[in-house]
């Protein structure tokens, strides 16, 4: 019985479509004053809400690497849960694909948990800091859908945490599913769910190309 190498088993997972590598995403935003209503709605719609909603407080750092022969730099986002002993998450996001026929935005996505040396590692590889922010908010789930209601907080360089202040007076609401290739019904499932949040928050596929380089 020969042992297969890690690379072989990884490509096997890719070929057999059980490696989740596509992110289906819908985004929207809601004012601070109305977020309470949204939370109530989500509590009613989502799974296991008998407990209070899960909170999170993460620091996201986006690193970029300018590569020769390409215009687009390679961007990797490293996220760290503040005040929690959890591994860092490195995330690669591909170019979003806003297909009119699909109900959601679809982009390729790779999630990789790493030890905390990752930022140092990337710096040594030649990556440079692009931007960083703190995301703080609530998480819900409904089946395989993940719903985050988060407040983005800007980091004032060189100051303590106290100096950080919210970017805007609203929360960003994201509905996402990471699934293997070829599961087209995901989008429909998400559209139906987004429909149920309708009057409160309008979840849409947001075309980043039109917005310019906003995170």
């Amino acid at each position: 019985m020969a042992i297969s190498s890690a690379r072989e088993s990884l490509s096997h997972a890719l070929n057999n479509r059980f490696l989740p590598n596509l992110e289906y995403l819908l985004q929207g935003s809601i004012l601070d004053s109305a977020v309470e209503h949204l939370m109530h709605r989500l509590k009613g719609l989502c799974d296991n809400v008998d407990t209070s909603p899960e909170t999170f407080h993460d620091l996201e750092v986006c690193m970029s690497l300018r590569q020769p022969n390409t215009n687009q730099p390679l961007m990797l986002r490293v996220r760290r849960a503040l005040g929690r002993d959890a591994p860092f998450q490195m995330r690669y996001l591909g170019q979003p694909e806003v297909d009119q026929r699909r109900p959601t935005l679809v982009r390729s996505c790779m999630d990789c948990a790493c030890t905390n040396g990752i930022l140092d590692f990337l710096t040594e590889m030649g990556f440079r800091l692009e931007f960083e922010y703190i995301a703080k908010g609530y998480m819900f789930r409904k089946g395989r859908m993940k719903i985050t209601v988060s407040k983005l907080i800007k980091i004032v360089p060189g100051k303590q945490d106290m100096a950080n202040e919210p970017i805007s007076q609203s929360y960003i609401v994201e509905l996402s599913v990471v699934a293997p290739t070829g599961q087209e019904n995901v989008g429909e499932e998400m559209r139906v769910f987004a429909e149920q949040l309708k009057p409160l928050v309008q979840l849409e596929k947001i075309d980043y190309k039109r917005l310019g380089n906003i995170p």
Partner: protein
Amino acid sequence: MGVTVLQPYPMPEGKSGAYIIDHLGKRLLSLGATHAGQFLVDCETFISTPQHGTPTRAVHVLHNSECPASTFSIIDNGTGKQVALVADNIFDLLMLKMTNTFTSKKQTKIESRGARFEYGDFVIKLGSVTMMEHFKGVLVEIEYKPCITLSYCWEMIREMLQGFLSINVGKEYPSYFTTQTIMNAMGQQQLHKQNDIYEPMDTIKQYLEQFTNYRKHVQMHSAMGGTVGPVMMNTVVGMGRP
């Protein structure tokens, strides 16, 4: 997880690698060890495309079948600084996203593969090292599971190496564990690695050290043939021995 020591097996003249492995395996079995599966440690090195002003960087990506969910990587920035990282397997796919900057040196892909034996609290692995399908040598990995600090169990491991495998091992700690001097933000510091808590990354670093030696060996041979590029010479940085 315990403490692991990696020891190259000196190749006697006129004996093939397969013979040595077979011989050692038989010896272990007759001494009471049990055969417990296979193992594989592989290493692939990515070299940054040379850009003016920056030294050539090398990223070594290693896998150990003992930790099937992890990918180990060590970056060597060319100036002696090394950063180690343990990540999910998906890291391999991320490396492929950087092919414009970091290219894989296929001809230096090296692996150690072989049988795994268990004897009480010891795990012994007899690996035959191959690079590009060419046999390079035999690496013996020996792990003592109940302990996590080398200094407490080195004598036992040494006895095992000498008694079971008849490898002549000195009393002093293996070179990887000997005191290292490293430069960091706190200035020059002495590390006594044999007293540290052993981590899976240490196994990987020992393998990389040995693999680098095998590669260097090849380069020295090929250097005589005059076909070596300067790139590899940069990456062959010793594992920080004094």
